[in-house]
Structure formats: structure tokens, C-alpha cells
């Protein structure tokens, strides 16, 4: 078979004049055979036939193709492309009623062919019968639907704008061919009118921010905006930008970065609250975080007047943000900014480096008058390190102060109940409590209760200290309820039996 085809093609090449026979040409065009099709595509030229001949060829093909079940989509597409290139005048003068049955055909291949010709045909959109449009738009073939969309190009911008929502939807959710055509049509609308551009920009923005799109669609839309909606991006409102900045879509965030950088940082172009800037500083997109750092570096007053709301960034997982805030705190804030509450807020962190910084602040900006305040507040920190730190404040700010000592009872219990840890803090607290037990009756009772609880310990070192301490307490108040009683001295004789 292949040999025969090869022989026939060779013969045809020797007699190209055969192509001038229109019937013969039509028959050749209907054959789906790669070598032949390639030769025909290379050989046929638009100038080979006049307009009448072209029209006859196109009409004849349309008539032949209608009942032709063996037409494949691939060949239909090829045929349409060849006719559009070489027989365009014929298409321009083709009677629409010849094309209509092909477009309404049940076979997708016929529809593919007819659709492509229809796009080139001069018939206006409104003259296309609705049932034909419906058949094309509802085709199962994506290519047909995409071509059907292209028919919308026949409309002017005023007519096309009514389809805006559909076009937007198709640009998000359609198949790749449909999306491509939808974006082409949207571009037509953008070129026609600025108002259209704004509406399209808003529509795409909302969709990008919704995180319902796949990566491919996101990239397409982002590129579309970058290429065709630059003015809108440059004049994006703060609300629109916020939407992009917080979108889960990485492409949306990249667009946001472009918009952010389009305006002068120094002029405070974005009227966001500090809370919003702090949120942006935690963005997963590095460029956004960096912009935020740059912005806050210029507009320091936002941080300085914030009552320390930004201190949460000290615990940021992003090293550059954390480094920025640490540097800001060290370099830009002085004793006028560091109130005791703020210092305690820093010390409250669970992050060791932040806690260390907190202690640094405490040592730098410590006020004697606030000592008790610091003691009470820091004593509630669950960390072993902070508990140890607090032991340094006990003798100066809790000694002989019944109210403070009683408030610290949870702290003492926590320190002394750490299992196999915090030895230094335990020793200090034990020593302190033994000293302070005499402060008042209430403190004495508190210490006695605590020691009673702890006396069950099997840690020999602690047990020994507790026993001694309880004995001391018993001496202070013989009626104190303690789980200890002093037995009389036992004297042993030389035979080692008690007397």
C-alpha cells in the first residue's frame, strides 16, 4: 500500500497541472496521508486559483465532507488551515448555508473544520443562528469550543462586554485552548476601553486571590496582567493590593511585589495599619518581607508609637525579620520606649534568644521601683531559665514582704517540683524560704504547707534539707502542723541495746 502511495505521489509531482482540476484537487485534499498532505501544503499557493475557483473548491469540499464519516479531527484541522491560507477568498464568498450543516454535524471533525472556516467567514455574530452557536459552544471537543469562542471576536467591544463574566470564567477554568481564546478576547476589550480594563483587572485579581486555580492558570493570568494591565497594576488600590498580598497563590504574591515596588517607599504610599505590616512581615514570600522591612526602616514611627505590638516579630521564624526587629529594638529604642510591661512581654517569650534579649533589657533598663512588679510577673514564666533568673530578685524584692511572698507561692512550688532539673534555683529558693519563714504567721504556714508537700521526696539531698528546715520551723512554732516529730534521745549501752 505504502509503495503504491509513494508511486502515485511521485507521478503527481511530475504532473502538478493536475491540481488545476478542481474535482481532482478536492479529492486529493480529502485524503489523509502524511506525505501527500505535506506536498499539497507546500505546493498550493493563494494565487493558484481565482476567487470563483476558490469558492467552488471550498463549497465542494464542504459538501463532500458533510456525509464523510472517516474524517478525523487532525485532518479536519489541517484541511481548514490549508484552505484558510490558500483559499481565503473562497471562504469570504462562501454561502453560509453550505457551511451551516457542517457546523451542526454530529461528528466533531466536521465541527472542527466548519468552526475554523466560520471564524474567517464574513458573517456577523448576530447573523449566526443561535442553535448553531449553542451546538458549537456545547461541543465536547475543546478545540471546537475554543473556536466557537473565537467567533465572539466578530462582535464589537460594546457587544462583547456583555460576555465579560463568561469570558473571565473561561479564562480561569476552561481548557487551555479556551483560556487562550478567552484571554485574547479580554485583550480586545482592554484595548477598546479603559473601564473594561479596570473591570477585567478586578475580576482577575479576585480569582487569583481565591487560590482556586492551578499553577498553570495562575501563571497565565499573572503574565496577562503583567503584559496587558500594567497601568491598572501601577494604580492598584490598597484594598486590591491587600488581596494579592494575602493570597495563597504565589503568582498573586509576585504581582503584589511588582505593585509594591512601583511606588516610592518614602511617601508612605500604602495606608496599612501596623497590624497589617506585621502580618506582611510574616509572609512566606521573601520579597514581601523584605519590602516590609524596608518600609518599616523608613517609617520607624509606626513601630515606635505602637506600644510594643511589633514585639511578636522577635519570635518570627524568618531570620531576616527577626534580625531586623532585634536590631531595631537595640538601636532605635531607648528607656523612653521600654516600659516594664514591654520588657516583661519580651521576657515572656518561649524562645531562648528572645528571653536572653529580655534579660538584657532588664539589666539595661531596670528601675528599682519596678523590681517587685518584675518579680511577680516574671515568676509566672514556665521556663526553667527564667525561674532561675527570678531567684536573683528574691532577696531584694520579696524579703520580709508578706504579700509578695504569698503571691510567689506558685513559683516556689513550681521551682521545687521540677523533676531532676533546676538544682541551682531549687537550692536558692529553699535557702530563701528557710530565711523568710519567720516573716509572718501566714508565710510560716505557707512554707510549712509547702515543705510538708515536698517532704515525701526521695531525693536524699532535698529530704535532708527539708527535714532540717522543718525542725527549725517546729522550733519557731511547736503547734505547726508538720509531718515530723522529734523522738527522745536514745542512749545505747556497750551492748548496743537502748536504755
Amino acid at each position: 500500500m505504502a509503495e503504491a502511495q509513494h508511486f502515485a505521489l511521485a507521478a503527481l509531482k511530475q504532473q502538478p497541472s493536475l491540481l488545476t482540476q478542481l474535482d481532482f484537487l478536492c479529492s486529493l485534499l480529502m485524503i489523509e496521508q502524511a506525505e501527500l498532505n505535506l506536498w499539497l501544503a507546500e505546493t498550493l499557493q493563494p494565487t493558484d486559483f481565482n476567487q470563483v475557483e476558490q469558492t467552488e473548491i471550498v463549497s465542494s469540499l464542504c459538501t463532500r465532507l458533510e456525509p464523510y464519516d472517516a474524517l478525523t479531527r487532525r485532518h479536519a484541522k489541517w484541511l481548514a488551515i490549508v484552505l484558510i491560507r490558500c483559499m481565503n477568498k473562497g471562504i469570504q464568498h462562501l454561502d453560509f448555508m453550505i457551511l451551516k450543516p457542517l457546523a451542526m454535524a454530529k461528528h466533531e471533525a466536521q465541527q472542527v473544520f466548519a468552526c475554523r472556516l466560520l471564524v474567517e467567514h464574513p458573517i456577523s455574530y448576530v447573523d449566526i443562528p443561535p442553535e448553531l452557536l449553542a451546538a458549537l459552544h456545547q461541543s465536547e471537543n475543546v478545540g471546537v469550543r475554543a473556536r466557537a469562542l473565537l467567533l465572539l471576536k466578530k462582535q464589537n467591544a460594546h457587544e462583547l462586554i456583555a460576555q465579560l463574566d463568561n469570558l473571565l470564567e473561561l479564562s480561569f477554568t476552561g481548557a487551555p485552548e479556551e483560556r487562550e481564546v478567552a484571554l485574547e478576547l479580554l485583550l480586545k476589550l482592554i484595548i477598546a476601553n479603559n473601564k473594561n480594563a479596570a473591570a477585567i483587572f478586578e475580576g482577575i485579581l479576585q480569582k487569583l486571590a481565591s487560590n482556586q486555580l492551578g499553577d498553570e492558570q495562575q501563571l497565565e493570568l499573572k503574565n496577562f496582567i503583567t503584559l496587558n494591565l500594567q497601568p491598572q497594576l501601577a494604580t492598584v488600590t490598597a484594598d486590591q493590593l491587600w488581596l494579592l498580598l494575602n493570597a495563597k497563590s504565589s503568582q498573586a504574591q509576585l504581582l503584589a511585589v511588582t505593585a509594591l515596588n512601583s511606588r516610592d517607599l518614602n511617601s508612605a504610599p500604602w495606608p496599612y495599619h501596623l497590624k497589617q505590616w506585621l502580618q506582611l512581615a510574616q509572609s512566606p514570600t521573601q520579597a514581601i518581607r523584605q519590602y516590609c522591612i524596608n518600609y518599616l526602616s523608613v517609617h520607624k514611627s509606626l513601630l515606635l508609637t505602637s506600644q510594643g505590638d511589633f514585639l511578636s516579630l522577635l519570635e518570627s521564624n524568618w531570620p531576616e525579620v527577626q534580625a531586623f526587629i532585634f536590631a531595631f529594638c537595640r538601636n532605635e529604642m531607648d528607656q523612653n520606649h521600654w516600659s516594664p510591661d514591654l520588657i516583661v512581654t519580651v521576657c515572656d517569650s518561649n524562645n531562648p534568644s528572645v528571653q536572653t534579649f529580655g534579660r538584657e533589657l532588664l539589666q539595661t533598663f531596670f528601675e528599682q521601683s519596678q523590681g517587685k512588679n518584675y518579680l511577680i510577673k516574671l515568676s509566672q514564666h514556665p521556663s526553667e531559665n527564667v525561674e532561675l533568673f527570678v531567684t536573683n530578685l528574691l532577696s531584694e524584692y520579696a524579703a520580709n514582704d508578706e504579700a509578695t511572698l504569698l503571691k510567689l507561692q506558685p513559683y516556689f512550688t513550681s521551682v521545687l517540683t521540677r523533676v531532676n532539673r533546676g538544682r541551682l534555683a531549687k537550692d536558692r529558693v529553699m535557702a530563701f524560704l528557710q530565711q523568710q519563714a519567720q516573716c509572718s504567721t501566714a508565710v510560716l504556714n505557707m512554707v510549712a504547707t509547702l515543705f510538708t508537700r515536698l517532704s515525701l521526696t526521695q531525693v536524699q539531698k532535698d529530704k535532708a534539707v527539708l527535714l532540717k528546715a522543718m525542725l527549725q520551723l517546729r522550733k519557731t512554732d511547736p503547734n505547726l502542723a508538720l509531718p515530723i516529730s522529734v523522738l527522745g534521745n536514745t542512749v545505747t549501752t556497750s551492748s548496743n541495746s537502748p536504755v
Partner: protein
Amino acid sequence: MQVNYRYMGTSQVASNSQHTQVSFSPDTLRPPTFFVGELKNKLAFREAMSALHQVVISDMRFTPKNRDEYQRWLTEQEQTLLADLVSKQGKVKQQLNQVRDELAAMNKVASKIMAPFYQAQNQYFKYLYKHDIDAWYVLDPVITVHPDQVFFECFSEDESSYGKLSCSYEVFKNISDTEFGTTNIDYSEGLYNEFQKIRDYRDTQLKIDPDGFKVATSGQQDFAEKKIDLPDSWVRGFLQVSSAMTLPMVRLKMQPMDLYNICFKLRTKKERVGPRAMRFELTPGQAIKVILEPWGEEILCPRSIYQGDEPRSIRVWGRRRLHILERLLPIASHFEVCLLGDGMPSFYIADLGGMSFTLGLSGWSANDWSKMANFDLLASRAEVDSQTSAKVYQALFESQQQSANRLALQLGLDLNTVKSALAQYSQHGQVLYDMELDVYRIRHLCHEPIPLEQLRFNNEREEKALNFVNTGLVSIQKDQFNENGRYIAGQVLDNAVEHQSFISLDLDHRLVDGQCNCHFWHRNKLRQGPCEHMLALRQQTSNGSL
């Protein structure tokens, strides 16, 4: 088992110098459940939530080491070893030494340069292991709002620890916006860090956020939808521990320092050989003794007197999970310890004054087949017809929580019938027995029904084993204790064929050897675990405890 959640937003703790707001985001796929109130005893709440967090993250399973560094070293050494072999030839040796010296110097420089990278890589490996989303196959913690309390429940990743924090309404003030029910809450590691900032001097509001239910439609970007494929073993473990709560127990009252002493001993010692049990020696009217094996360390609890009538000796395993309770030691007034029997689940209830924390531990920390674990905990206890069961459930549903006695009176039913019906619902995760208050509570563990029949057994062999035991087809020929453990031999009649089997258990009750003449054993030996005949022998000799 597929579980779906939909949360609006994420749970958060927001703090400033004056206020703290703890806001849990509930699952909006479940019926609305919410609660808003201000905490009175904030520090105790913080410590209790921290202990609950320890349960959530508790994972005593084997952690693989990052072998990348070793592999790199080995690759380097391969060249060296090969060169050594070649260098046996005299001439080459000199050259080799020179090259080796140069290489050593270069490696030293390379190590210095690459050290931060390898360190970061190692940290990332550990981070991935810990935070690998695929590893988080756990149900998000469950919150139930009832007319008398709010309680949180969770189950650990390694399927061995259950945590429940109950907060009665007396620990709250300014309660508003309540809707009874059960929901899952969005939980994350970051929340734990924020909990640590709760302080007594800040007003603290606890919110199970009602706002999520006010938004009608999903698909909005504020909703986060999660689909999790829960392993059957995890669900089974949870239900087994829950089911165990309804069984009769030995109850002990212990002081916080008794638990302290146990934890202290465990922190200062490391066992290298078994047995690894913790043995409670209970003599009526005498101080409780806890013996830590294998060292024989005795912890006497002089202020904790056993009030039972009969002397008992009960061994429990997986004792290191008790470290979870350490944060509660300063705030607990006492602990109630509830034991079922050797190798059975055990419960530790901390009284926190207005709140209580229940730690439930499965029989062992690793639920592998060598423990021949408690698959009969999901066994049906007694026959109760479905109509009666439904009646009991409905009565309980109306009040959300009720004691079995009250229900029996209300419905005119026998108390045992009511208890059996409720135990069935408990096995299905729909009812929870509150061990502290001796009431049953409506609590739907999952929004979707739990397919108990699918989950009840780990494998077909367990089901067969139970059938053998229940139908009296197992006869024990030898059951001997020796210094190495226990030897059990017997016969199981399976499809009219007698199978002779034996099993050897070590002192930790682990299966270390076994043999059978069945096809499964001949084919797999013990590689796939014991056959149904060995399991039947074990079950027959367990007498309700393993």
C-alpha cells in the same frame, strides 16, 4: 478511615500586656459547638493545656537516625581502603601518603566550610521528620461542651497515650455564647508556644469560636479544609483506651510527690534489659509501694494508703509516659490512679481544683504484635438488644450527661443492662465514661460513624483467636512461670484439626518464641506475628489481664 475537617481560620492565642485571648477554631462540618468564657485560674489552665500538648506530640516510637553523614564518611573511606590495598606495593605507598596528607588538609577545610550546611541539613531532617505532614495522621483534638463542663481530649501519635482536660464551669466567669456538642479544633505546635504566655495578671478569655458557623458557604478563602486518612490502628487504640475506662478498676489515691518520685527515678536511671514494668504492690491499709523493674527500686508512698480489700500486685508498662504529668505536679492536689490489671490500660487523674486532667496509657507504649495487645477491649460485653440500647442512648442524649443509676431508674431498666448498652456506645466512640464523676457523657469522637467491625481486630488472626476462646476450643496443657518469663503450651481445635502450639513470653510479657503446626506458622514463622492458635493460647490464659 477518612476524616474531613473544615476550619474557618486557625486557632490562635493573642496576647498583649493586658489581655490574652485563646481562640480555638472549631470544625464547621460538625454541628455547631461553641463556648466563650473568661478563665479564673489561668496558670493551672496553662499547665494543664501544656500537659495535653505533651500527649498530642508524645511519640515513643523509634526515630530513625540521619545516616547521611555516615554514608558520606563511608564513601570517603572506600577510596582510602582501596588505596590501602594498592599501597601494599612499596613504590605507591610514598605517593599515597603524600596524597593522603593533601587530602586530609583539604577535607579539613571542606569540613569547616560545609559544617553550617550539614548542621542545617541535619536540623531540616529532624524538622521534616517531626513536621512531615504525612506523619500527622492524628485526629485533631476534640472539645466537648456540656452543661456542666468543657473538656478537651486527644490521643497521641504513637497510639499509646490519651489525654483529657475537664474544666468545670466554676473555673470560668462571664460565660456567654454556649452551644453543647462535640467538635474538633484546629491545633498546631505554634499554639503551644503561645499558651506559655498565659499569666495570672492578664484577663484570659477562652473561646471556641462561634464565628465559623456564621458564614454560610465554604469555598471562601478563609476556610481551611483538611482531609486526613486516619490509620485504623490509631482509631482502634483510641477506642480501646476509651473502652477500658468503663471496666472495673482498682483505684488508688496518690500524692503529687509520689508521682514526682517515680519520675525522678525514671529520669536518673536507664534500663538496658527487661523487665521494664512498674509494679504496684497493694496491701489493704498499708502504704502503696511502687517497684521499678528491673532494678527492684522501691518507692514507698507513706501518705497514700491502699483502701482496697484484697492485696494486689499489678504490673504496667510504658512507664516513661508518666513524664507527661510533670507539669501538673506543682498544681495538682492529688492523683487518682486507676489500674485494670497486668498490661492493661491505666489511668492517672490529676485533681487541679475545678479542673482535672486524665492521662490514659495503653498497655504498652509500642502497640506491636509482640505484646499481643488488648484486642478484646472492643469485645462485646453483654448482649443488649438494639431497641434497648437506642432507648438508653436517647435518654442520655437528652441530658448530655447522666449516671448509669439515674438512667436505669428513669428507664426502668436493670443497671447492668444500662451499663452494657453504654459500654457498647463507648466502644463506638459515641459515649464517654467520665471516671471522675461516674457519669456517662454524649461525645461523638468523629463526625462520620466509626466502622467498629472493620476496626475491632488488627488482623483476621485476632478475630479467629477470640472465636476459639469464646467457643471453648482451646485447652491449655502447660502454663509455667520461670525465671525467664512464662511458657504456655496447648491445643486449639480449628476446623476439626488439632493444632499443637506453644508460646514463650519474657518477663515483659513479650512473645519471644513460639511454634505451631499450622500453615501460617510454617510459612512465616514469627515474622508476621503469632498465628491465631498462639493468640488463642495467650487469650485463654490472660484471665482479663495480660
